[in-house]
């Protein structure tokens, strides 16, 4: 019989894993060269950190949208929680930079994750369009509460946040995010999540606890959004509630959609492209929004209206994975 399933060794020291490790180190050297060398001017160097932050945001949102198949329009809300938590920690602690920042990152991620549970448990009972709208509502609720509270500086926001974020921190966290989410997706937990996306009735029938795995995916995504928020705050040094409105959530969604739902690699590439493109085009913010709109509409029409199927059948386009959830009746 042909050996369809690849034999896997029983430990982590496979050839593939060694190659990946080598790739990660090589990648770091490249990023270091770009950040420190003379190849890029200051304007482009300043994009390295935001690209990394958007990669973390997009890869984590892809877990909810691409793998769990639920549209979350509240990712910026979790990012805000992480950003404010992290900023308040480094503003109030008097510890060495590295210690303070690590605490901020971890706590920021965890508080966002806790909110992920609080919001996820009720919200994930809903499906489809309703779920999307409620996550949007929570995004707005979080933002107006931050706007209202004294500790977060109200509408003025927080300023003088130490600029701890640099390309090294970002690179480490980007790698960690990608590795953890990719590993998760290819594990028993990840299979449960994808199974729920494909058919939740069948998923229940084979003994999967649907709500548990939905919440799990949602919370893990929230955790990484929180970390991205901490990085974001310590990069800009100022935070305002208005930074985390629903447009920010959509911005992250645009990256996921462009990169392809359910594709981690796609999210990484799209995050880079969509951060660099407006800079290269030197376009005003007005055009950035137009670009997002066109990406969303064009991608959906291309993927789902049958244009792609036609192209694929005529052989003009290689077959690619597709969107998966069926319209709820």
């Amino acid at each position, binding site marked *: *019989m*042909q050996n*369809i*399933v690849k034999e*896997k*060794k*029983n*430990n*982590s020291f496979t050839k593939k894993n060694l190659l990946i490790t080598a790739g990660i180190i090589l990648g770091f050297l490249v990023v270091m060269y770009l950040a420190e060398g003379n190849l890029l001017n200051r304007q482009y160097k300043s994009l390295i950190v935001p690209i990394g932050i958007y990669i973390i945001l997009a890869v984590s949102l892809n877990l909810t949208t691409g793998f769990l198949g639920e549209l979350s329009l509240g990712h910026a809300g979790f990012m805000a929680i992480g950003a404010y938590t992290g900023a308040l920690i480094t503003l109030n602690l008097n510890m060495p930079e590295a210690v303070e920042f690590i605490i901020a990152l971890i706590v920021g991620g965890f508080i966002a994750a806790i909110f992920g549970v609080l919001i996820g448990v009720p919200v994930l009972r809903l499906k489809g369009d309703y779920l999307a709208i409620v996550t949007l509502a929570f995004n707005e609720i979080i933002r107006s509460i931050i706007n209202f509270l004294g500790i977060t500086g109200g509408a003025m926001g927080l300023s003088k946040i130490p600029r701890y974020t640099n390309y090294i921190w970002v690179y480490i966290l980007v790698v960690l995010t990608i590795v*953890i989410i990719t*590993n*998760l997706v290819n*594990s*028993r*937990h*990840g*299979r*449960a999540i*994808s*199974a729920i*996306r*494909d*058919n939740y*009735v*069948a*998923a*229940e*029938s*084979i*003994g*999967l*606890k*649907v709500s548990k795995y939905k919440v*799990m995916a949602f919370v893990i995504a929230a955790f990484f959004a929180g970390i991205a928020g901490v990085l974001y705050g310590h990069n800009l040094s100022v935070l305002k509630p208005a930074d985390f409105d629903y447009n920010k959530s959509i911005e992250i969604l645009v990256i996921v959609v462009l990169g392809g739902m*359910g594709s981690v690699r796609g999210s990484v590439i799209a995050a880079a492209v969509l951060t660099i493109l407006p800079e290269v085009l030197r376009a005003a913010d007005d055009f950035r929004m137009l670009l997002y709109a066109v990406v969303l509409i064009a991608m959906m029409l291309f993927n789902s209206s049958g244009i792609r199927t036609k192209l694929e059948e005529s052989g003009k386009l290689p077959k690619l*994975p*597709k969107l*998966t959830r069926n319209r709820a009746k």
Partner: protein
Amino acid sequence: MALLEVKNLGISFGGLRAVDDVNLNIEKGQLYGLIGPNGAGKTTIFNLLTGVYRPTTGTIKVDGVDIVGKSPSEICQNGVARTFQNIRLFKKMTVLDNVKAALHNQVKYSLFTSFFRTSNYYQSEKQMNEKAMEILKVFDLDGQANYLASNLPYGKQRKLEIARGLATNPKLLLLDEPAAGMNPNETAELMETIRLVRDKYNITILLIEHDMKLVTGICEKILVLNFGTELATGAPEDVLNNPEVITAYLGE
């Protein structure tokens, strides 16, 4: 003691009594058929047995355990697996992953292991692959293990659903029209497979089917349902010669 004991089972939707006072006793290892005209409530019974609907009246015991009020996933862990009339596969997952997803509660490892791929991950995944391939082989699906489930031909999709159910290690397997849409050759082959599965895995099977050849060919006992109530129970040849049953099927 019977493996499945159903007493006075009933459910109403609004005013409609979809299933009324159904009693069912299936012995361990039995191959049992559930037949009846369209709309008789057969699939509704499956939905009651698997916790998709909660019965209005009656009790359901699987191997002595009362499962009324439990969620579908709990009932599955109590040893009941099923297939669906309108195939419900995980379409965008591979054939192998469809079965591995069903092994979820057989081979376990922690979320931490998932995140960081400790050696336990590689061991467990290997174990899962072996188990899954073994089951796929029974259904002659091992050659398509890496296909997307949606790319399988129809007959094979039906088989994959049975394989997936079997992977949950059930005591009782419910098959909802397993031969629907199959040609006579495929049906004959499926009959063999169902018998083989029952013997090899030592399970009990309850199936809904319209193909009388299949029903009389493999079922040891049959329950005929009409308008949600029991019309007749017994050995296939007796039941199918029952004048009431003939009337229900052919009309007056």
